[in-house]
């Protein structure tokens, strides 16, 4: 049975970088539990022998030539940025480590 707990939701919110409030976590725990129960049924038909479909229309080998195309100017790139120094995007201190 799919028992979703508030800890599960909290963990998922962490992975998704969303600072959910206690109230939101509580509400989502209930909703997610119901949803996951509702979708469990697909396991019945999704058996070993069925190949998953990632692309509805089968195409393959879609490549482009190694030729420079239209680029953004620095100004265009920074145009939507909440904070920048004229040449780079600026963010507050980073906690985590590079991968």
């Amino acid at each position, binding site marked *: 049975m799919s028992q*979703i707990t508030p800890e*599960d*939701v909290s963990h*998922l*919110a962490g*992975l*998704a*970088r*969303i*600072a*959910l*409030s206690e109230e*939101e976590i509580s509400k*989502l725990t209930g*909703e*997610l539990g*119901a*949803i*996951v129960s*509702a*979708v*469990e*049924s*697909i*396991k*019945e*038909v*999704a*058996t070993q022998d*069925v*190949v*998953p*479909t*990632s*692309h*509805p*229309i089968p*195409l393959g080998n*879609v490549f*482009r030539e190694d030729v420079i195309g239209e680029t*953004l100017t620095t100004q*265009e*790139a920074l*145009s*939507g*940025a*909440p*904070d920048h120094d004229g040449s780079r*995007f600026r*963010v*507050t*201190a*980073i*906690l*985590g480590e590079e991968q």
Partner: protein
Amino acid sequence: MSDITHVSAAEIARSLAQGEISSVEVTTAYLARMEATEGVLGSFLARSSNALEVAAASDQARSRGETPSALAGVPIAIKDVLCTTDMVTTAGSRILEGWIPPYDATVVTKLRQAGMVALGKTNMDEFAMGSSTEHSGYHVTKNPWDITRAPGGSGGGSAAAVAARQAPVAIGSDTGGSIRQPAAFTGTVGVKPTYGGVSRYGVIALASSLDQVGPVSRTVEDAALLHDVIAGHDPHDSTSIPTPWPSMADAARKGSQAESLAGVRVGIVKQLVGEGISPAVKQRFDQAVDLISAHGGEVVEIDAPHCEYAVAAYYLVLPAEASSNLAKFDSVRFGLRVTPEGNPTVEDVMSATRDQGFGDEVKRRIILGTYALSAGYYDAYYGSAQKVRTLIQRDFAQAFEKVDVLLSPAAPTSAFPLGEKLEDPLAMWAGDLTTIPVNLAGIPGMSIPMGLAKDDGLPTGLQLMAPAYQDARLYELGATLERLITDRDGVMLSMTTPEVI
């Protein structure tokens, strides 16, 4: 021509070509209509600031003998999910409030090159997640047929705009029914092309393997004309189909002239006409089917058993892909930035921004999608849902060996009251049961009006489905049925939207 807004886009194009009217005059009429009705309807999020200049340029080009397309000079509304360099683009979300993209979507470029006149960006459920447009971060759009009712979603803005004559045609996007269901609710025509038929470049992504852009109109011919403008291979979109498309407008014209449906085989998908379909919708659907047999069409019952699992599979595939697609909204490069008190790390800023900038439905689906992809759960959820897609494709492939087109209602009910389904996500999601299988399979689908529901007098829609690559079949049969239904009722439903002001 007393009021140009009462005629189809094809008719406008004809008048422009004949020199009976100018694009400036047409555009002015639609802008006035928007002005008069927007207070009630709320179809738009942004309005173009240079529509008349573009219209004037179109008239000048025409006077020089240049007509870049059949729809040159015709105004159009664009769902706010497509990037436009000259209008704020938000995908209906506060997290993109005020954002001006530095590039145009390929479809937008095609509309501009076709000489069409963009009137504005239409309202939508946030990031196209919804079936009523009530999840827009900005405001609710009303259904012109009854302003206490939802216009459908996620593309309620485009559908309402076209139904209420604020624009002759519009662009929508469809991931699980977001063009077709609003078409059913508002008595208009909506088409989701074969997956890959229209470029997704510059279309703010919801579920990459399901999203498609398509036309919204009041007639099948108008949708066909617009389809011809926007379809085609785009090297910027790896999933776009390389083979050229035949003319949908030709198919529509051929269909509208057909006298009989002899030789046409249509299939009724058992799983899409049973449980969940309201009696009033079923009644209109049965009527439409009778009309087909009466004109020589062969009607076959089709068993597509895996359609029963379609909604479940969809609400795993979509949230999973969306959770990844929406990760880019993190306060760093564009969009909203919320900086909490104290010395927040960038992770704190990202998390606060996303909690505040995303609405509840978006957060719900991101969390669900993250779950479906997470370690230990992938095979059971996302992996299994991708298998259901294979099974549904198989069901449809088998069906299309027996029939040319499949039919079902485009929505299980007529437009529901605003607010009715907001507290129950599962109930809202169940409303997509007839449209979702089409996106999962990647095949094309169309909704055309099939008559007002007997109980509430609101529009209902007929869905046509064809095999992948056979979009023209939809236009041909759709045009025939449109004519037969119009003849039966004595009036074209899409042209009889009640006045809202």
